[in-house]
Every structure is written in C-alpha cells, then in structure tokens.
C-alpha cells in the first residue's frame, strides 16, 4: 500500500511541434514535440516525457545586445552565421532563437534584408528555429510575412503576439504553417483571452505557445512564477484555452542592477547564476522552453534537467 498524493487532474497540456524534418517538408535535423504533460512538472510517470528545451538567443543587431554577451562571445556576434553555428555545435543549445532587433532601429524599412537574415540562420544551423520579429505596427505586416515566407516549411515558432497586435503574426502562422508565441502581461485571464482571440482568427491550439512574460529574478520574477503555475493548474483542471506549453524568457536578466554593476571579475558568473536560477525555477513551475543569452548557462541547465528528469534528454524525432 504505497502512499501517494492525489491531485485530481482532468486535462492535459496540448502538444506543439517545433521544426520540420525532411519527412515533413523541412530541412531541420530534428523536430520536437513539446507539451503533453498530465501532471505537475517532473512528476510524470511516463518515461518518454521530455525535459525542457533550452533555446539560445542570438540577434542581428548586436549594438542593441547585452555587453556581457558581446564580451563573452567576442567577434562572433558580428557574424550571425558563425554565431548561430557555434550556438548549435559548441554551446549545444536545443533551439536557436533569433531576435530581429535590427527592426527596432528608428524608421527601419529593410524588409528584404530580414528575409536574407532568416535564410542565413536557417542555413547555419539545422536546429528548429524561433524568430522574434518586429514590434512596430508600421512594419509588422511586412516583417512577419517575410519571416513566414523565408521559413516556409520549417515549422518555425514566431514571436510575439499580444492582445493589441496579433494579426500579422497570426497571418504568417496561418499562411506558412508556423506556430506562434502568445504573450500576456503576467495575467492568467488575459492569457486565456488572447488564446481565444487567436482561435477566432483561425490559429489552432496546437500552434500556440504561451508566454506569460517573465520578469527578471528580483524584479517581478515571482509574479511570473505564479502565473506559470496557475496556467498549468488551470490546464490540468480541464481549461483547454490555457492548455498550451509555456516559454520562459526573462529578457532583462542581463541588464538588472546586480548583474550590470557586478565586479568585472565575477560578472559572467553572476550573469550565469541569474539566468540559471531563473531557468530552473521556471522549469519547476512548468515552462517547457527556457531561453538564455549567456552561452555558459546552457550546459548547466542541461545537466540539471537530466537529474530533474532522471531520464534521457529532450525527445527528438530525427
């Protein structure tokens, strides 16, 4: 008579496919299926459930990127193809997340360049790709169409849809069969509403990844932590409008005071600690994709996940 706690779950987390291999019309060497959880994170009995995926973030305009990463990676950041390749082969990320932050420049109009950038990154690494597009109503339509087109067939994950602007990214997702990230400001009800809006415009549930917005550790992280727990709880209790996998990216982590003002001798270590602690906690709450910017965080996360999962690494279809 083994004593066991009962939770009374009635729902499961939906599954989303990231990346398309040759058999599915793409050129990725691996395709991931995330989601599928039936209980609290890391409590699954099913041995085929997978660890959270680790995404390494790169960008096409390093001037807007953290000086800590620029310092650590050196000249690499100026050569996106090389940087991407390194992220794959040396840093050993599970996914690449490309930030098209060149679009944040004032009066940006170089749309064809965006297409080229996406193609470059797709060629440099055959890992599944997440693309973070523009956030400027004037160019969003063009930018997302270009991303969608350039990545056609690869089952990208496009970011980021918000309640006030989601049509362009939804159009790209629908037109070119990609998935998208739906972000809400740390509010479970708003997350649900956005998913409903997306459903109304035709985006299928299995093409949505929820981003509850992650505040940096010490700068609102606990709100995000609880939002992740609440979303997962609602999903497991049968709310299908919240039953999507969750992505965690705390973009301000490397620019918060403790990291920014750290002694140069320990700055990298502090940056990595900050990203690592955030990532493990988010994973414990239920996040399925953890995004990081400092290369050294990746290996640490992977090792820890292995022990938390006590099983093999991410489930992939080769």
């Amino acid at each position, binding site marked *: 008579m083994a004593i066991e706690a009962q939770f009374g779950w009635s729902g499961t987390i939906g599954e989303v496919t990231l990346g398309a291999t040759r058999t599915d019309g793409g050129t990725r060497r691996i395709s991931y299926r995330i989601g599928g959880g039936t209980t609290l994170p890391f409590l699954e009995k099913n041995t085929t459930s997978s660890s959270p995926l680790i995404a390494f973030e790169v960008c096409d305009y390093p001037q807007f990127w953290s000086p800590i990463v620029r310092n650590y990676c050196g000249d690499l950041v100026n050569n996106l193809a090389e940087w991407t390749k390194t992220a794959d082969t040396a840093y050993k990320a599970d996914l690449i997340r490309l930030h098209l932050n060149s679009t944040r420049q004032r009066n940006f109009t170089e749309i064809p360049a965006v297409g080229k950038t996406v193609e470059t990154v797709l060629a440099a690494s055959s890992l599944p790709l997440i693309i973070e597009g523009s956030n400027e109503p004037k160019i969003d339509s063009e930018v997302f*169409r270009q991303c969608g087109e350039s990545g056609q067939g690869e089952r990208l994950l496009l970011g980021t849809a918000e309640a006030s602007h989601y049509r362009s990214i939804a159009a790209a997702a629908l037109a070119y069969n990609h998935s998208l990230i739906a972000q809400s400001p740390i509010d479970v009800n708003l997350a649900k509403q956005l998913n409903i809006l997306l459903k109304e415009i035709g985006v299928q549930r299995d093409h949505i990844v929820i981003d509850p917005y992650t505040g940096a550790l010490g700068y609102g992280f606990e709100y995000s932590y609880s939002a992740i727990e609440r979303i997962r709880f609602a999903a497991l209790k049968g709310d299908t409008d919240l039953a999507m996998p969750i992505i965690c990216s705390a973009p301000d982590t490397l620019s918060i005071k403790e990291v920014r003002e750290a002694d140069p001798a320990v700055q990298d270590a502090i940056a990595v600690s900050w990203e690592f602690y955030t990532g493990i906690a988010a994973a414990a709450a239920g996040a399925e994709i953890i995004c990081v910017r400092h290369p050294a965080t990746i290996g640490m996360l992977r090792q820890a996940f292995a022990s938390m999962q006590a099983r093999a690494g991410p489930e992939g279809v080769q």
Partner: protein
Amino acid sequence: MMRGMIRMTDVELAKKRGEEHLKETIPAIKKTFAYEDTAYHLPISFALTGTAVHDLNTARDVFTKTGNNPIVASECLLAEKTATSGKENAPFTGFIGDTVIRKLGYSLVDGSILGLALVIGTPDSPGTAAAICRELQEKYMLTFLAGPVISSLSDNGVKLGLEYRLIPLGSTPAYGIHFVDIIARVAMMFGGVTPGDAGRLLAYAAERAKAIVIVFPGLSDDEIALVDGMRVLGFPILSLGDYSGGAWIPSGADEVVRKGMEEKGIRVNITAIPIPMGCSPAFEGKSIRKEEMYVEFGGGRSTAFELLRMRSPDEIKDGQVTVIGPEIGSMKEGSANPLGIIIEVAGKMMKKDYEPVLERRIHNFVNYGEGSWHVAQRDLIWVRLSKEAVAKGVKIEHLGKLLAGKFRMDFPQLLDAVAVTLITDPVKVAEARKDAERIYEERDARIKGMRDNEVNTYYSCTLCQTFAPNHVCVITPERPALCGAISWLDGKIAYEISPSGANQPVEKGAVLNAQNGEFEGVNRFVRKASHGEIDRCSLYSVMEYPMTCCGCFEAIALMLPEVNGIMVVNREFKGITPSGMSFSTLAGTIGGGAQTPGFAGISKNYILSDRFLQGEGGIERLVWIPSQLKDELKNRLVQKLADKGLVDFFDKIADETKATTIEELMVCLEKAGHPALAMKPLV
C-alpha cells in the same frame, strides 16, 4: 420606366437559361486541363467535393454531385478553354498561382486588406468604373475585375495590377470565376477547410471572406447564372441599373461600395479625427479655468443636456455632424450658452440597453479634447471650450466630429454609424431636453424594477481573480458585485461587447432552494470556475454556502450567534466590532477566494436590496452596522423598510455608539425589542 423596359434584364429568367446552357455545354468538354502552380486542382470543385477535376469524366462527376451547380460548371469550362486557347495576354492574369494567393490571404488575415470585391461587366459610362475602383482602394478592399470594365479602366488611365489592388482577371465576365477559386483556396489554406467539406467552405465564405460583387450591364445568361450562384457563398450581389428581380441589390454608382460593404459588415476603422485640436486620453485630467474659457454650457448657468440614442441604420448617416443654432462665432467670449448633445448610433449588434453605458463615454471623449472639458451627466452637464482652442479655429461642429470619431473608433464591432447633433438654439434645446428627461426616467424605471426572477441569465465577473484565483462573483439584478462597481446590466453589456472578457453569462438553471437563492446552473458554473474547490453557492444566504470573496468587498456581513443576528461592517470603519474582530482582521480571513459559512463580502448597496439576508429570514436579522454607513444609507433604507411595513425597525439596528462589544449589544437589542432575538436560531 420606358427606358428601363427596353433594357432591363430579368435575372431569374436569365439565370435559368444560363444554368440550362451550362448543363448542355459540359458534355462538350474534350481536352484535359490543369492549372500551373497550384496544389488545389480546380480549387472550387476540389473544395466542394474533394475530387481533382482534369477531364470530362471528373467534370461531369462533380457537376452532378453538386446538383448541376453553375459555378462548378463555369470553373470546368473556363479551365478547358484556357487549356485549349492558352492564357490571355497581359494585363489579364487568368488563373493566379498559389504563391501569390498565399500572400493575398496573409493580407486578409492581418487586416491590411479589409475585404474582396469583384467588379464585373461593361460599364456604360467610363468614369463610373474609375470612381468605384478608387473608392474601393481607399477603403482597403482588394478588387478583382472581369470583362470590358478592365479596358474601360485602363482607357481612363487607371493603373491596374497587384500593387494597386486592382486585379484584371480576364477579358470576359466569365473570368470572374477566378474570384471564387481564390476564395476557395484561401479557405483551404487559412481557414482549415478540408477538401470535400462543402459545408465548411460555405460557412467560411459566408463568415470569414468579406466578399462583395458589383455587376455592370452586359452579362450573358451563363455569366448571370455564374454570378447569381455566388449568393450561396454569402456574397451580396449589387447591380448597377439594368437588372431586375432575383435577389440582386440595385444600387446607384455613388453608393454601391458603401452599400456593399455595409451589407457584408465590412467596416473601415477610423484612425484619425480631422479637427483642429488634439484628442488623447492624456488630456483627460486637464480642466479649463474660468480665465481660460471662451464659452461654457450648463453648470447651472444655462441649460445643457446630453443623450445617446439608438437608431436604425437608415435613419442616420455615419459621421454626420449637425449644429442647430448659433456657432461659436456668434457666441460672446465668457458667455454661458445652452447646449444639447445628441448622439445617434446604429449597429447590427447595438441594443437599447447599451444606451446609458455608451452615453457615459461622452464625458471621457469630450475631456480627451485638448481645449474641451466636461463634467457630470444627463441634464447636469457642464462643458467648456478654451480660448486657446477657439483661437486655433475649434468650432462647435468640431466637438461633434470628435464625438462621432471617438465613438466609432472605440466601438468598432458594435457601431456601424454614429451621427451627432449639437443644438445651441435656446428654444430647441429646451424642447429637446424635455424629450431627454422622459428617456432618462424610462431608463431609471427599467433598472429599478428589475427582479432576479425575471431573467434566466446572471453574469459572472473575474476581474479580481489576480488576487483570488478561485474567486468568481455571480451578479444578479438584485445583487451587484461585492466590489460595488458592477451591476447585472454592466455585466451583461460587457459580455455582449467583449464575449471573451471578464464577464461571462451564467445560466440559472433549476431552483434548488428559493429562499437561499441556490440554483443548479449557478452551482455548476461556480464548481467549474473555482476548479472544483467550491461545490455550491447560495446567492442570498450568509450562513449556508455563501458566495466566495476576493478582497475588494465594500463591506462584510457576518453572523453574531449570541444575538441570533447578522451584523455588517464596512471598510471605512476602523474599530473593533461586537464580533470581537475589526474589518481588516475579518477581511484577511475570509478573502482570497474562500467560502466561509457565516460570513459574506457584499457591496454597500446590496443592503438595500430585497434579497439581502433573504436566506436568513430577511432584513430583520440586521443587528449592528457602523453609524457612518447607517447614515449613508438612511434615507433609502428607511424608505425600503417602510415599504415592507417595518416602520420602527431602523432605530432598532444598533451601531458603535450604542454597543461595541457583544455583551453591550445583547443588552441593547433586548431593550429595543429587536426582532432577531425571536427569530429562528441561526446556528
């Protein structure tokens, strides 16, 4: 009449002839045919039946399967003709490949294109077509052209092509079939329509594809059959003269675009308001002092009122602003003038109930103006225009334009048309105000009288779930939300305006316990909304299964078993109550989504409701309430009690001036002969 009789085409007759002719022509198909750059074969047939049509057999097959559908026939015939005679030369596009269609579909979904139009036939005067196409372009429609209209346009110097959103499909109206195969492909690419699922295709075409057809004269019978066949897809067919009968909508050239878009519910969103003053929420708090004002209206110095009314669409013209009476130019600086603000709105989803909710926005919108200021509501308003604004050229009519624009911008789904009338003529203002007052009274009567048994649907509210994850308020006409801010009507309107928002309908269901207000549907809803934490909820009871609380309740009703009564304490009262606890102690324990029998968070106004304490036998249970709250409610409460025949009861209710401990309260209640002491035991 004479002219028309010679040239009019009877649509019904022509259609029948055309359908017959198409049926006869199908068997004449000889060649095989296939379009390039498409994964969807003949897209319409493919979408409807799942069959890939490329020759006579398959054509006959789908034609029969779809009940001899003229659109299917037209598609097959044109495909064969293209294979036989080859593609037409530029500028005609003929069949457009999937790659381009994908791009077009993208623009439809992301909203850069509002809808699709097919313009087909032979215009009798050259300028007409050009004007119509220009209007379509301005309204973000993607227009497809088929027939002599194309040469008419290019002869007129109109540029055609994808980048101009004017796409010339082919030299005869028969090429209009490509309009339909494009929509069929968009449905399959974006709308999740599986080939063969005819029902879904028709639903997608009718609901999602915002498509209209504008028909010029000169269509053959076959072509009329083709166009008429598009009605089943939900496309309104607008005809410019020449056609009679059928379900085609006759229209003049200068209104055909507007009519078509209205018919299909395609709305252009307004983004800017063309007035010489800024308009933004940033100006909301700016008041206009006496020294700064040019003129004022109302505020006790003159008559002024505002009113919003619903009208039917043909009664008003969208964007129309009328000033009845003197304009700003005739008003002396520093003067007070009469003003009537009348907003008339129309919309398919608009309801009379929404009038007061929308009317309240007049206040915000006028304050958004940089140089305009507004307080109060109804016939108590006070409005000012600043000297600075008037110097910049702002007139009364601009205030109207601001209101018309803001109402359309803020309620794009709800309102199709907004017209504003501003009356400044003193006699007319007085007259109109009388009508307005009548309407205000009607509205008040309607809400006051609303009873819980009159409605089957209550409304939930989850606005404060951030702090109490399992809490849900159930709002009824006689029981407002416990924060005091939301009434049943507010919840209903909020739901209708944003169906996926924080207010959802709760079907009452069967009555399980009338006195306690327990309903089957409410229980079911609460169970789901609290993720299984709460099983039952009695709307009118404090003792048994009371509603959960978040933390923003205005007051708490709780049991005092020693005196067999219920006491109420509100947030503002800082002292210890006879229960032994203060408001904040109580709030800390019963909040957070808990259901605590014996304790309920309520709004202050609920105390005046007939349902208050109904579960416990009625208001006679009320034993203690802070004096400040008692004063606040006094007039209304005394009235209510008198209505119930409880004339002396008000004074029997104790407050902190009479008792602060339970012992003192007991003595006090006994002395007063409080009815609760003799009622059924609470515990």
